[in-house]
């Protein structure tokens, strides 16, 4: 191997990112950030110090072997890099785009202490996109285990759990209430951030693993979790139904025409393609002066969607400051570039009626930061006498979500005080054989955290079923394959009692 790289020898600057011009992209739904070209990827891969004890792997919720795949990129072995990533993450094209890398892998990258950290997310996306373009899939030899697994919800948690269980030889069926699979990736995240074609390609990979997707199926109402276990022959069930139920404003005027949740706006636009109305039948309220309340990733998506639908100006109303904003740094940056007007330390008080039941404007009040609250963030308090009005004809609220009540209404799963499903550390619920993960357990979080939960649930589901953990053998070498004993990797967490399903050993 070449000389050991140091912070001084690596390329100092990040490979340039090519993006659509803000003025242009604010009017179309094409992807904002272009992927790396090969030369960009090679440049960026050179910047990785290949730390022997990589912090980035620790920082990744699914522990992708990041130096491993970067090394393969440097060797121009893109297929090899894909193999490394898919050993732990089957959905690189999605994660490379939507993970908050700055608070995960890139946030702990030692290069970042002196320079910009290695653009791990963009490298991952580069490999994911290359795989889709080349039609690569990694379908390991799978020996059927005879177990049937039902997964409720086809979002990121369900997809990740499905992938792991399918690789463990289980017969996996994923149920989705919408007419298309993908969950929040489809209805929530707009095309300019995550094109639907990418999601479909990743779902196709799961299908190739043998995962079945059943859409138009509302579990709980069409059949219950109890029925899945007792009547439909499922040996274990994973519930990843997401948080859903949007929080409401609870201020005067919030049921006027032109006031809607970001979920409704995004679903109409992304999943139902209302932006193509009337070619597609679903209508969408259009605003010339849009106010979006909240400053998370969903709020950013909603604002940028409104801009692309032709709004003249879009305002972000947030009661704290930019520093407390929960959105990814890149999303805020992109929104600013596209001309979103941010009103930090501003809280809505009332939505004003135009006399015909529609929105005419909004009354807001200025805030200032007071003492820190339970979350450690400084609590915003209203500034007396600072109320003001401004004109708006569409108000979108993106102030978080609550637990979806359907699972609680239709099953005996134990819920916590806030209505989320209660699980133990292994994501097992109060019902034997039923695991849960993602937003329905934790409350609203990120795509990759949901994927991490899906994988964790899968690991524990395998333990519950008495399946050997097939997860680890897919890790690539480099971390000591010396400890093999009778062909069994010692790192593989082997469970004391090995239960073998009837069909596997007949």
């Amino acid at each position, binding site marked *: 191997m070449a000389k050991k790289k140091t912070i001084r020898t690596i390329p100092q600057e990040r490979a340039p990112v090519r993006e659509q011009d803000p003025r242009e992209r604010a009017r179309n739904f094409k992807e904002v950030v272009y992927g790396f070209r090969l030369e960009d990827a090679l440049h960026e891969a050179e910047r990785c110090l290949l730390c022997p004890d990589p912090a980035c792997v620790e920082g990744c919720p699914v522990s992708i072997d990041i130096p491993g795949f970067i090394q393969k990129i440097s060797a121009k072995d893109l297929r090899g890099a894909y193999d490394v990533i898919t050993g732990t993450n089957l959905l690189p094209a999605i994660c490379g785009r939507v993970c908050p890398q700055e608070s995960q892998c890139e946030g702990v990258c030692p290069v970042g202490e002196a320079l910009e950290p290695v653009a791990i997310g963009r490298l991952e996306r580069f490999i994911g996109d290359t795989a889709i373009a080349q039609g690569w899939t990694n379908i390991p030899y799978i020996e059927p285990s005879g177990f049937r697994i039902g997964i409720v919800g086809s979002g990121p948690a369900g997809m990740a759990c499905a992938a792991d269980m399918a690789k463990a030889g289980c017969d996996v069926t994923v149920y989705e209430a919408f007419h298309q699979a993908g969950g929040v990736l489809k209805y929530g995240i707009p095309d300019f951030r995550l094109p639907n074609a990418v999601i479909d390609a990743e779902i196709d990979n799961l299908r190739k693993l043998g995962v079945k997707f059943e859409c138009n199926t509302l579990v709980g*109402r069409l059949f219950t979790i109890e029925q899945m276990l007792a009547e439909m022959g499922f040996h274990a069930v994973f519930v990843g139904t997401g948080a859903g139920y949007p929080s409401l404003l609870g201020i005067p005027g919030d049921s006027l*025409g032109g006031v*809607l949740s970001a979920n409704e706006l995004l679903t109409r636009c992304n999943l139902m393609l209302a932006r193509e109305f009337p070619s597609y039948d679903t209508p969408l309220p259009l605003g010339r002066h849009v106010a979006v309340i909240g400053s998370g990733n969903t709020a950013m998506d909603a604002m940028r969607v409104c801009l692309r639908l032709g709004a003249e100006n879009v305002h972000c109303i947030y009661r704290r400051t930019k520093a407390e904003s929960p959105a990814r740094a890149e999303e805020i940056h992109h929104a600013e570039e596209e001309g979103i007007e941010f009103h930090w330390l501003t809280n809505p008080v009332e939505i004003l009626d135009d006399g015909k039941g529609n929105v005419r404007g909004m009354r807001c009040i200025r805030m200032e930061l007071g003492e820190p609250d339970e979350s450690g963030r400084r609590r915003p308090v209203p500034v007396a006498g600072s109320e003001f009005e401004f004109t708006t004809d569409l108000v979108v609220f993106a102030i978080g979500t609550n637990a979806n009540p359907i699972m609680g209404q239709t099953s005996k799963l134990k819920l916590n005080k806030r209505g989320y499903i209660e699980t133990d550390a292994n994501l097992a619920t109060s019902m034997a054989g039923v695991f849960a993960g993602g937003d329905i357990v934790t409350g609203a979080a990120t795509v990759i955290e949901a994927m991490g939960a899906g994988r964790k649930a899968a690991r524990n589901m395998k333990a519950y079923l008495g399946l050997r953990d097939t997860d680890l053998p897919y890790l690539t070498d480099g971390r000591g394959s010396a400890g093999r004993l009778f062909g069994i990797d010692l790192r593989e967490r082997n469970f004391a009692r090995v239960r073998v399903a009837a069909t596997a050993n007949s």
Partner: protein
Amino acid sequence: MQGRAKVKSQAMSRFEIVTREDFSDVTYLLEFHHPLMAKAARPGQFVIVMSHEHGERIPLTIADFDRNKGTITLVIQAVGKTTREMQQTCQVGTTLYGVVGPMGNPSHTSGAKKVVCVGGGLGVAPIYPQARAFKEGGAYVIGIVGFRTRDLVFWEDKFRACCDEFIVCTDDGSAGIKGLITDGIKLAIATHPDIDELVAIGPPVMMKACAAMTQPHNIKTVVCLNPIMVDGTGMCGGCRVRIGGQVKFACVDGPEFDGHQVDFDDLMLRLRRFKAEEKTALERWSESCRMKNEIETASLSRQSPAYSPDNLLSEPFALPDPFEEVKGG
């Protein structure tokens, strides 16, 4: 293993339409195959239908379900673009692109001894399974349904089979009593002082009137709300309604609520949200139908010298009142 395979094939069924019946030039019945849904459905629940890939998701209250045949019945009024289009395209043997359900909480049909079941407009069909369930629960059932005129009356025999008393109200008096549904309710309350409960399904104005009538008599009143929805699973909040000052989602908290607590004015306001878009869609669709007819007739005209372009102008569409819109029923 056989049982499992059966469940699987049922879930895979492609929503094939097995029966179609036209009650009038705007009201039609579709019965589609979905054994699993037929098994799960309860009175008061609804489905969301997507007729084709570019279509919108429309909530429709289940009008009937047959567990033996494995079918679900919907009764639809052709008032908007989607429902008019479905009136043309949904024939026996065709399939719907997507149907999801049953959704919403089933109604509580036990307990009451004497019940009035009221259905008006779109609510006539979905009140039927409720009346039947009350009857099966041993209640004395008074059915009241309203139509504009005699020709529009349907399912009279089905209602008579499960109602102890059945009152038809028509605007012109051509069938049953002359008058509105509220006249029928007045009659029922006058003759039965011991009514425990009234269930009303229909346009918001009608349900509002029903609730206003029962309030002085302190009769428990249940209404089935039909706001605009997208997903029907509690995710979009489009169907939020005000119940006793609190905001509820009709799809997961309802669709049935205490009629005396519902803010009907708010509901009616929210139903108008997409009035302009609904009008655009309908006009555009009617135009494309007209052009299609024109092309077809033009090709016919080569053989028929009697062709005159004046005949081709389709009659102007009377735009539907949004309160009559097919958003549930």
